[in-house]
């Protein structure tokens, strides 16, 4: 083996070592939560690097708790409704912004961009009042309404970017045939927009599923909470006696669906996150 080959080999080994470090760094906290959740409480305080037992007591405990199951249902209902509303309003708005030239278009786009930069806490008191006056306080409906503040601007923006890339001829043909704008959207664009809608829908779902501040502030009772709040509020006798086993079991339960989604739709998520970033 000559010197050149040796250097090449060393570089290869170095690369794989670095990759291994990054992989461990990215995955270890989740992996550690999984092995913690599978331990009986008696072994919880011994540090283990490998799966030492397969004890499902923690999972049984959280799933027999009515409020946790209820929180999962609430989270699913809220996230799916948010996705539905964001896509419905987003697809029509993005047609207007992406395909039609009209006065005030740039202003509308700037408003949307501005709203997406709002710190949530800046609207907290005003939104609290709106939600209470609509009788939606301590109700998943209030969360569905308030989550549009961060899902809608994002959805409209990404869908507009995608809408713009579709060829002009399609629409011209539709116009020649006398199709109204509504028919153009539903019959011509909708079938072509499915990939973009899947991407934005997925990102909106993840954002709604993970949201914490509004969920904490606009709900009061256990039966109305979403999972992030339920997990944050799991407590033991005192600050130093947190029931780590059940907390980790609950954490793993709400994370697994997301990890699976990410694994399956990795490409879509990446394209959604970077949409437009390098195209300028």
């Amino acid at each position, binding site marked *: 083996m000559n010197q050149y080959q040796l250097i090449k080999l060393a570089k290869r080994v170095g*690369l*794989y070592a670095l*990759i291994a470090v*990054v992989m461990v760094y*990215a995955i270890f*906290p*989740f992996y*550690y*939560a999984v092995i913690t959740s599978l331990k009986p409480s008696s072994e919880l305080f011994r*540090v283990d690097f490998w799966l030492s037992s397969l004890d499902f007591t923690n999972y049984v405990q959280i799933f027999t708790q009515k409020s946790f199951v209820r929180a999962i249902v609430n989270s699913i209902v809220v996230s799916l409704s948010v996705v539905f509303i964001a896509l419905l*309003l987003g697809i029509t708005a993005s*047609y*207007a912004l992406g395909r039609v030239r*009209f006065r005030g*278009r740039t202003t509308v786009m700037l408003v949307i*961009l501005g709203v*997406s930069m709002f*710190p949530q*806490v*800046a*609207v*907290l*008191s*005003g*939104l609290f*009042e709106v939600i209470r006056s609509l009788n939606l306080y301590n109700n998943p409906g209030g969360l569905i309404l*308030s989550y*549009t*503040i*961060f899902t*809608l*601007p*994002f959805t409209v*923006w*990404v869908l507009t970017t995608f809408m*713009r890339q579709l060829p002009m001829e399609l629409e011209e043909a539709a116009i020649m045939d006398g199709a109204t*704008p*509504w028919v153009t*959207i539903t019959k011509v664009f909708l079938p072509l927009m499915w990939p973009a809608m899947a991407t934005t829908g997925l*990102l909106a779902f993840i954002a709604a599923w*993970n949201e*914490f501040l509004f969920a904490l502030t606009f709900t009061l009772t256990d039966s109305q909470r979403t*999972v*992030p*709040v339920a*997990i*944050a509020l799991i407590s033991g006798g005192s600050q130093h006696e947190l029931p*780590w086993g059940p*907390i*980790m079991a609950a*954490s793993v339960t709400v*994370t697994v669906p*997301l990890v699976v989604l*990410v694994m399956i739709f*990795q490409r879509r998520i*990446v394209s959604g996150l*970077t949409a*437009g*970033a390098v195209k*300028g």
Partner: protein
Amino acid sequence: MSIPATEGAPQEVRPRQAGYRGTKVRRQRVRAAWTFLAPMLFALALVAGWPLLRTFYFSFTDASLSDTTGALFIGFENYLVYDDGAWYGLLTDPVWWRSVWNTLFFSVVSVSLEVVFGIIVALLLNAEFKGRMLVRAAVLIPWAIPTIVSAKMWAWMLNDQFGIINHLLMALGIIDSPIPWTASATYSMWAVIMVDVWKTIPFVALLVLAALQMLPKDCYEAAEVDGIHPVKVFFRVTLPLITPALLVAVIFRLLDALRVFDVIYVLTSNSTSTMTMSIYARQQLVEFQDVGYGSAASTMLFLIIALATVIYLYLGRRQLGVDQ
């Protein structure tokens, strides 16, 4: 969630063919456009515009959480008031200034670390090796995990008595006694930064990776032929070329970091050594029920972020102008 990094102002729609303008079809399309926009604009006005105006208004009143309608207008008293020989109000509260400092410190340190590590991870993912897709998916995991969950996972790993991190550091002989990561005034801010950096490296790495994949291959071939050191190539060729994408990532991360709430709330709750502006404002609003004073703090936070946004839009425009 923020809008993904789309640079600057939106592009213009391609110009239409001559003779098309002003026709019946066009008028119909413009009318339809506004009809389609109306529901979205109404929704945004309801959840963003109106509540924001109310927050501004509340900040000049003595509103409390139980009764927001009967509030009295009190001018700037929530911000600053001179009463009986002393100044009072938000701007004289040392806890508020502490939280401003904490927010800025957290934002600058965590975003800097994320950018450095994000670039390293992106360069790694850009290299050719077997199982690249798998590694890319694995790197995305921290991003997908709910912030609350990642805060809890790290809280457990950072637990002072039973945490794996203290256990490892002691086994390696780096520390003699366990560090109370989340409880100590010295370490808690670093613990928070550690968790945030872990969670957001993937976002920065993906944006940088997307930029890396668009780079022209030929200048790298030229550099290799000339025998230029890879480190020099990175600083002289790669870094300048990915700067626009990097700038976008930095701004989005910075705006996110300035409004940070959940990771800190879960890890260290309302402790003053890590309290940020969002946590301060929410504590006043919800826990102390003082909507007027809390709204004043929210308004200040909004103004700071608005300023950052304006600077970004200005820079973004300029950037586009230079490119074209």
